[in-house]
């Protein structure tokens, strides 16, 4: 029996989605930019898919840019916005370095993009550390906002520990700051104090978009299936998602860019995607993305949706999330019976599909290989699985010590997982941990 519990890495493409993509490859292979009927066929598919995404995100179709996936969308959002800032002619005369706020637990495609821009001297950056449970405090972001802050990028659901960040509340806080800036002529507060960050740009260019606004980007790659992702509900300017995380194909995703948000494209060439992303469109992939979205929405529409409670109001509590929550909690409870085991991340503000536990004196990669031998697929935040000598930056940021983080295992559940499979993991894992601990110099 093969048990796949690594859905945060990728999901198995839905057979219907794969079938449709095959059909599109065969029958609608025209270049969507061509004027002839072959092009028109492809163009129609793109337009329909864009409408589907717009429906899903509650935005306008022209606010959707198709990309090659989550990493490209994140790169485009951050680099594109900073590029636009530096390309602004007024800015060139003023030379105020823009400031970007992100968190220490972001996906590498956000974190490393910000670090790279910082290294190049194109931005100043602040990295907010979450609380020990993984949740970022809105106040901690607010405290980092300066007069030259132009972008905040915070992920919706963490890919390793499943922690859900208060995106709506962060957006409200940013909106308040933006209002204050307008009222106070570009400054966070109207207290007259010497400003070390040369914010004169903001005062003298009140007609400029950058003069008043902090833009808000969220990486929602892990959120699409289970959480509210309406961009008006969330209040974000930029939102990233990827198709292969919800049973769609790999190599295709999208970036929502709210009308009026200054972005400069990062892939230069033809005029595709409203001149925001050059390159002949991946029509079959985009059709697959759209079909997977439709299927996801249909599952929600066919199910009764309940109130998800005050602690996690952004969770869409329908049949599938209820089922996953039960399986998740059963797995956590079962694994916690193993001595010297801990759960990483918040138990309450947690994705319904995420289990992340650490075993003391057992190394993650060794656990993974032994699980794999039993047909169970999971992942780990240990240094040995990362290819570097560093354990997971997420676990380190929330204060998990190396002796625990090296023994961390993530199980991420999906729609095909059954209770029997969870029971099997609970049955198999104690023996694996015992065997590894017997081999360890510190084990019993």
């Amino acid at each position, binding site marked *: 029996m093969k048990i796949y519990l690594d859905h945060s890495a990728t999901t198995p493409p839905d057979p219907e989605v794969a079938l449709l993509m095959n059909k599109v490859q065969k029958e609608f292979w025209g270049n969507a930019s061509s004027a002839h009927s072959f092009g028109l066929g492809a163009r129609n598919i793109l337009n329909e898919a864009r409408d589907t995404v717009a429906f899903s995100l509650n935005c306008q179709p022209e606010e959707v840019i198709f990309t090659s996936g989550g990493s490209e969308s994140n790169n485009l959002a951050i680099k594109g916005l900073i590029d636009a800032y530096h390309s602004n002619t007024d800015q060139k005369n003023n030379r105020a370095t823009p400031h970007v706020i992100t968190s220490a637990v972001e996906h590498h495609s956000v974190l490393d993009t910000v670090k790279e821009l910082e290294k190049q001297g194109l931005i100043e950056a602040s990295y907010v550390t979450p609380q020990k449970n993984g949740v970022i405090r809105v106040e901690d972001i607010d405290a980092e906002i300066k007069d030259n802050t132009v972008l905040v990028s915070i992920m919706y659901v963490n890919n390793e520990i499943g922690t859900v960040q208060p995106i709506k509340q962060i957006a409200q806080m940013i909106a308040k700051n933006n209002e204050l800036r307008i009222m106070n002529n570009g400054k966070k507060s109207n207290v007259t104090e010497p400003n070390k960050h040369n914010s004169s740009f903001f005062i003298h260019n009140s007609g400029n978009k950058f003069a008043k606004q902090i833009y808000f980007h969220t990486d929602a790659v892990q959120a699409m299936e289970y959480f509210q992702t309406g961009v008006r509900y969330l209040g974000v300017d930029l939102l990233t998602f990827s198709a292969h995380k919800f049973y769609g194909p790999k190599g295709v995703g999208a970036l929502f860019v709210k009308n009026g948000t200054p972005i400069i494209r990062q892939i230069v060439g033809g005029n595709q995607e409203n001149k925001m992303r050059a390159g002949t469109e991946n029509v079959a992939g985009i059709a697959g993305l759209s079909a997977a979205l439709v299927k996801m929405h249909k599952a929600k529409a066919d199910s009764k949706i309940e109130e998800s409670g005050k602690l996690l109001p952004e969770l869409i509590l329908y049949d599938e999330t209820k089922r996953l929550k039960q399986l998740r909690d059963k797995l956590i409870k079962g694994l916690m019976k193993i001595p010297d085991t801990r759960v990483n991340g918040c138990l309450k503000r947690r994705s319904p599909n995420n289990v992340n536990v650490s075993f003391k004196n057992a*190394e993650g990669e*060794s656990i993974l*290989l032994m699980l794999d031998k039993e047909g169970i697929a999971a992942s780990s935040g*240990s*240094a*040995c699985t990362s290819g570097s*000598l560093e354990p997971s930056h997420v676990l380190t940021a929330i204060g998990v010590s190396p*002796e625990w983080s090296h023994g961390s295992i993530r199980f991420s559940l999906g729609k095909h997982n059954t209770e029997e499979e969870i029971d099997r993991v609970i049955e198999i894992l104690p023996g694996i941990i015992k065997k590894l601990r017997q*081999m360890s110099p510190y*084990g019993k």
Partner: protein
Amino acid sequence: MYTKEVLDHFENPRNVGEIKDADGVGEVGNLKCGDVMRVFIKIKTRKVKGKSGKEKVEDYISDIKFKTLGCAAAIAASSMMTELAKGKSLESAEKITRDDINDSLGKLPAQKYHCSILSADAIKKAIEDYKRRLQLK
């Protein structure tokens, strides 16, 4: 990612355990980096014929055990190292290199090479420990 030999030594590690009355113990690595290896050796003497044909007495590793906390490569490298060292004279056991271990395993992936370094260091430390104890006697 791993060769058959690595997986075999990971799944069926040779010489796992401790030697209570060990003559030398070597420990390398630390919890922070994730890999910790502890090696126990038992030393005996035997008569062997030297190059000139004259009989001489030499120390050799009569028994060796290890305990390792680490990834599959670290466990496999420890196991292979004990196989290479067992029965060898101290002189030749000291000379076991990271590449000897790495080659015997059919090469570890590049990012796992340091695991073979650790186990080569572990046997050297155990022999050093044995020699230090001799001096104290």
